[in-house]
């Protein structure tokens, strides 16, 4: 009954879900200036780069990459300024990936805290919607009831509508009627509310009350294809309810309102025929039924017309034509049963789902994905009804997601193999470099170098203190100074030699000039030496640092590489295990959907078999009657 309404909800959910939720969440990595500030104030800064990175993928609907990056950033403590909004976004991402259980857990944890009412309302609302679609009706109701009335009127209306639909699905008709009677919402939603109210009233046997809402929907003026279909459906529901209540005259005009080119026209034609027939107008009933009989035999209304046409002929006394139509029906049903059997065999071969997903875009995962077209295969003609069911669509979505996950793991497996090669190469390079490094380290006595530096500095201090200018002279100066010193020493040992008086005088002059020259450059040379000491010190510190790093790398490298190897091995094992589980679950999901499809086909086959038995029975009755007539008409034999 509510399939149209359900579909409407699904499509209306599609673009809204996350964008709607996120409008309420402070998801931006920055607080953006929506309008440029006329005073040219600087734009707001990004709060966390990694949160912005998550949003970059999120805004491209790449929810899988987005959630991976978000979880990684959270683990690496890279969201210090966006923790709260990141958690809400995580809930939203889980929801968009169909992970409603996980999303529910996050929301429940977060939304019971100090989240704003607007955020809370929207999160519960969208969670409720997803749960509704997945058939988690109790969870859905619990979530929807958490939403307060302080929410946009449109969302509030949708919320009440969802609650009412949920009650209808649980066959809580009285609750649904009470909810729908109290429902107020935007005009385009009113038609759905009225329709659902009418259906609930019919289901509880309150036809007189149901007439008004269904009639109202059945008369609405609209050009929207979706609402036109709803209008047809309301007329059909009301028409058949009246027929069931033996009010054929009232039912007929209502059934005639259904469009002849709409999806419900076959059922309407059948109903119009039944109304005529109930009024004893069998000739008139033949008009819609014969029109219906020309349609595709897949439609259950068309199948029924294969029986109603001969039934009408029979009632009109045209038993010959009736027999002809029954015979033709038996043959057609036979052929159809055969086709269904063949299709069941095709489905049993196990390739149905893969064929269904052949044209599917494989690189995205979205909550609102739906299969819209069927492959050109014999069994497809039977599956359109199945495609309209949530159970099949959601199951198919799960199967598709399992395939996506499996491909994702396959891609990682290639990377992991590269990681292993890389670690091997690193280990090899390490093994090659270690002996050379060890040799260099062994040849370098850093302590001795440090001591030398200290000695050097002490010597400079001494030179400065004793004003030993020659110590900082150039090598030539030092050489000359040494010669002077030697001559001076000689002269000192011969103080009274008059022949040396001239030499003594010349030496005094040379020594004075030399000393003056060296004194002149002494300060600059001393400064240069001090600078050299500082540079030496810096180089020594750097060398010591590097030596520590080399030592650490030398010790750390094997354990570092080893730790990575352990991690790679561990994730490889997890991957193997997950791949096995994925394959098994995928197979079960496949079997489940296959069983759904086969169940659907078998139900069609059983219906056809029932019709066929009925046709045979009616045909036999016609023949019996004809035989009786012939017997009665035959003149009695002379005794």
């Amino acid at each position, binding site marked *: 009954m509510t399939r149209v309404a359900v579909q409407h909800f699904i499509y209306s959910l599609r673009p809204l879900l996350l964008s709607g939720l996120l409008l309420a969440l402070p998801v931006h990595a920055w607080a*953006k200036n929506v309008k440029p500030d006329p005073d040219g104030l600087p734009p707001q800064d990004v709060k966390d780069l990694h949160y912005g990175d998550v*949003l970059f993928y999120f805004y491209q609907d790449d929810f899988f990459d987005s959630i991976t990056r978000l*979880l990684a950033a959270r683990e690496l403590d890279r969201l210090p300024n966006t923790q709260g909004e990141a958690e809400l976004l995580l809930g939203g991402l889980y929801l968009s990936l169909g*992970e409603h*259980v996980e999303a529910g857990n996050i929301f429940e944890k977060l939304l019971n805290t100090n989240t704003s009412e607007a955020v809370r309302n929207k999160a519960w609302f969208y969670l409720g919607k997803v749960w509704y679609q997945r058939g988690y009706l109790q969870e859905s109701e619990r979530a929807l009831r958490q939403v307060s009335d302080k929410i946009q009127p449109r969302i509030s209306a949708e919320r009440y509508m969802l609650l009412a639909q949920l009650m209808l699905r649980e066959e809580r008709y009285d609750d649904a009627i009470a909810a729908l009677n109290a429902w107020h919402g935007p005009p385009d939603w009113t038609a759905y509310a009225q329709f659902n109210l009418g259906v609930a009233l019919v289901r509880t046997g309150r036809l007189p009350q149901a007439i008004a809402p269904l009639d109202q929907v059945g008369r609405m003026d609209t050009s929207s294809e979706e609402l036109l279909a709803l209008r047809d459906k309301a007329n059909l529901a009301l028409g058949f309810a009246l027929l069931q209540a033996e009010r054929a005259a009232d039912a007929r005009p209502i059934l005639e309102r259904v469009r002849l080119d709409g999806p419900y026209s076959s059922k309407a034609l059948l109903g119009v025929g039944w109304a005529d027939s109930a009024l004893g107008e069998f000739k008139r009933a033949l008009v819609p039924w014969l029109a219906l009989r020309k349609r595709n035999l897949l439609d259950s209304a068309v199948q029924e017309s294969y029986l109603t046409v001969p039934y009408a002929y029979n009632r009109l006394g045209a038993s010959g034509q009736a027999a002809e139509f029954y015979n033709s029906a038996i043959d057609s049903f036979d052929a159809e049963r055969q086709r269904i059997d063949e299709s069941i065999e095709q489905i*049993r071969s196990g390739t149905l789902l893969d064929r269904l997903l052949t044209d599917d875009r494989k690189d995205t995962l979205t909550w609102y994905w739906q299969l819209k077209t069927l492959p050109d295969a014999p069994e497809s003609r039977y599956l359109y009804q199945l495609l309209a069911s949530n159970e099949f669509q*959601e199951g198919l979505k799960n199967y598709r997601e399992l395939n996506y996950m499996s491909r994702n793991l396959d891609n990682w497996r290639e990377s992991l193999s590269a990681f292993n090669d890389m670690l091997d190469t690193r280990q090899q390079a390490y093994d090659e470099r270690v002996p050379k490094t060890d040799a260099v380290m062994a040849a370098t006595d850093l302590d001795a170098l440090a001591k030398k530096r200290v000695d050097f500095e002490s010597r400079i201090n001494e030179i400065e203190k004793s004003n030993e200018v020659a110590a900082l002279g150039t090598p030539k100066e030092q050489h000359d100074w040494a010669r002077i010193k030697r001559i001076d020493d000689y002269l000192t040992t011969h103080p009274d030699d008059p022949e040396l008086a001239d030499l003594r005088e010349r030496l005094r002059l040379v020594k004075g000039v030399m000393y003056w020259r060296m004194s002149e450059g002494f300060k600059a040379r001393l400064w240069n030496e001090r600078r050299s000491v500082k540079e030496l010190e810096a180089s020594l510190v750097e060398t010591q640092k590097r030596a520590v790093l080399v030592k650490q790398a030398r010790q750390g490298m094997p354990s570092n590489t080893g730790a990575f190897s352990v991690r790679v091995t561990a994730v490889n094992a997890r991957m193997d295990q*997950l791949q096995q589980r994925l394959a098994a679950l995928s197979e079960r999901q496949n079997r489940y959907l296959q069983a759904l499809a086969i169940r659907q086909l078998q139900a069609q086959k059983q219906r056809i078999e029932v019709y066929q038995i009925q046709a045979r029975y009616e045909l036999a009755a016609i023949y019996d009657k004809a035989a009786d007539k012939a017997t009665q008409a035959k003149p009695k034999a002379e005794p």
Partner: protein
Amino acid sequence: MPDAPAADFKTLDQEVQGMKKDVIDLNKDLFVLQEELLFPANTQVAVYVSMDVGAFFALDSVTVKIDNKEVKNYLYTAREAEALLKGGVQEIYLGNLKVGKHELVAFFTGKGPVERDYKRGATISFDKGVGAKYLELKITDRVPKHQPEFKIKDWD
């Protein structure tokens, strides 16, 4: 064989949920492992692109040079540019650099004011220390000048 009684939808759905959660968690672990292995923090350098407003500039491409070597030339799709405008931040480059001084030059091309082709550059000299280095290439609109502005922020 196949039309043996199938598991009920909810049981299977819950198993699929659990399975997906496990795969998502493994993906996160693999992502972290990959980054730590290929781009360890002591050498890691990550360059990001962000955009604010975008009234005066429609981004086409960004080229990143580090120490005079081109490390990235990225052409944006409309979808990516839109994601940036909505507040997404793109990690345009993730690589390794030695500790010490480096220079990054970025060139931005696109459509500037009045639909004119627009190319601008921005430069930053930075010190790579022992921790990961994050640099943000910021594209913002300067309203008083009616011009876009390109800056590089060192996240230290």
